[in-house]
């Protein structure tokens, strides 16, 4: 085991340029999707609920709808999108399983 070794950013790199490019594309996608995840639940369902409640979707005040229904539907869409998109990205980089 290495002792007293300073940290180098490329430490232990086994990853090829291809794998690094794949990983940074994955990270960018994660930032986008996790932002949406935050906006539909914590944003629409909690922080901006009162503002959104002046609008309605059927008999649901909009903010309330996000908190008790909408956020969950968006969660499902996010996972489906990520699952499909990642498969494409992995094929593109020839890294799929």
């Amino acid at each position, binding site marked *: *085991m*290495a*002792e*007293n*070794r*300073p*940290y*180098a950013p490329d*430490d*232990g*790199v*086994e*990853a090829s340029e291809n*794998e690094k490019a*794949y*990983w940074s594309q*994955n990270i960018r996608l*994660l930032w986008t*999707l*996790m932002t949406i*995840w935050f906006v539909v*639940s*914590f944003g629409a*369902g*909690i*922080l901006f*609920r009162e503002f959104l*409640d002046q609008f309605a*979707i*059927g*008999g*649901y*005040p909009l903010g*309330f*709808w996000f*908190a*008790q*229904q909408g*956020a*969950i*539907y968006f*969660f*499902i869409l*996010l*996972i*489906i999108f*990520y*699952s499909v998109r*990642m*498969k494409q990205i*992995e094929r593109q980089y*020839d*890294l*799929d*399983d």
Partner: protein
Amino acid sequence: METQTLIYIFVGLSFALYIGIAIASRAGSTKEFYVAGGGVNPVVNGMATAADWMSAASFISMAGIIAFSGYDGSVYLMGWTGGYVMLALLLAPYLRKFGQFTVPDFIGTRYYSKAARVVAVICLIFISFTYIAGQMRGVGIVFSRFLDVPITLGVIIGMGIVFVYAVLGGMKGITYTQVAQYCVLIFAYMVPAFFISFLITGNPVPQLGLGSTVDDGSGLYVLQKLDLVLQDMGFGAYTDGSKSMIDVFCITAALMIGTAGLPHVIVRFFTVPKASDARKSAGWALVFIALLYTTAPAVGAFARLNFIDSVQNTEYAEAPAWFKNWESNDLIAWRDKNGDGKMQLGKGEPFKGAPLFAEEAGTNGERIVQNEAADDNPNEVYVDRDIMVLANPEIANLPGWVIALVAAGGLAAALSTAAGLLLVISSSISHDLLKKTFRPKITEKGELLAARLAATAAIVVAGYLGIYPPGWVAQVVAFAFGLAAASLFPAIFMGIFSKRMNREGAIAGMVAGLSFTFLYIGWFKLWSPESNVAANWLFGISPEGIGVIGMVLNFAVAIAVAKFTNAPPREIGQLIDNIRVPRIR
């Protein structure tokens, strides 16, 4: 046929099914025992995960909690589903690629440390036992309410069933019984929900019904009517909460992150064949969970309306049969404060604490309550919130077989979760503590035997906790989520996304997050419950939500400590590169 007979038939058939599946899928190796051989179809695993995840609390209690807290109940709806996004995007595929058996396996290997592994095992055992005691209790309660069996005997029967399929079949047996249990529980939940939605709104789909108008000619939307009726009675509006925004925010976050850190959920994603299947499987799991979770708020709202309609200002003598049934089960009580013989609902406690009934009956035939008076409010009726699901079929006048179905469904929910928890406890003992830490020379056969013995011991302890629930069980459910959020989640997350995070940082972070959260919850829930009011809370965050602060503390301590200690060895960098890529090199 009589309802009672139907209940026996439904419950008996479902149990026979579970045992049949268990015998058909016995585990022959540790890999089958721990991760069902690693070859479970992602859709099947999604269904099993849904049953694993949805416990007695989701099935029996959640709709009732929402019914009585309106908007505030959203913390459970978002909190117990949003974690799956984190699982699918941030954890599951990488942990699957890592390809071992347990959560401490990952932490111990990634942080090249037996100490880290043992800390993870301690977190895991604490989280899982807290959770499982509640499940066994749930089994006992369903038995006693529906089958007239004493709670103790109910718990013992439940232990016996779980023993057969968890000890024989391990993860393999559990997976396929959980699939059957999901089918039973979702059917049992949806059927009464369709009926009651149709009854109130004319639309049988509860998710749409909750957004429709009430079918009483008033033209009001369900939520509008509920707001009006509740405000008339002195409550706040249903669509408005009473919790502060920061508390709602933190509880939701703690439940989400806690979900993503719960070992019995994570380990389900070790059973699928590939990393990409883990993502897909998390998506399916959430679809199956969402079916119940988007129905629950509708059931809650309908049940509340129905309850008010049939109780408010009704003479006790005219009270519906279900009211008296549940009164005789101690879950409803009425004290005629104003002496008019009619039942009035309102804000506040009808009397202090849970009802203590006297032997004799009151002037209207009601059971007399001996509790200390609480005369500062007009509310006369005590209701246990669990009734909203359990009595829903009776309140809506549904046929006997629906009631029988609900009994079988509640048992399925509790048993499936209990089995999943038992499995992670037993594998953390036989695999992480014995094989990987203290007895590395143990044979495959010996390890399998140890896993079965550990599962047996865990069932006995869980049963004991179910029969003699320590007073704190109900008080500390917050522990399980808060601790998972504050201890395991950050360690796993940084293990994947940071190459710099090292052994020292991870251990210091877990210990800091765990102790802070433990002490905060312990202080307000166990040692000083009288001080558990918003004014005393840190930043106004209740013990339910404090796991988020514990998590932030974990990250901060871990990053600071890692900055001043050695970087992880080279092999760890390679391990991380490897788990980040789905293809097997």
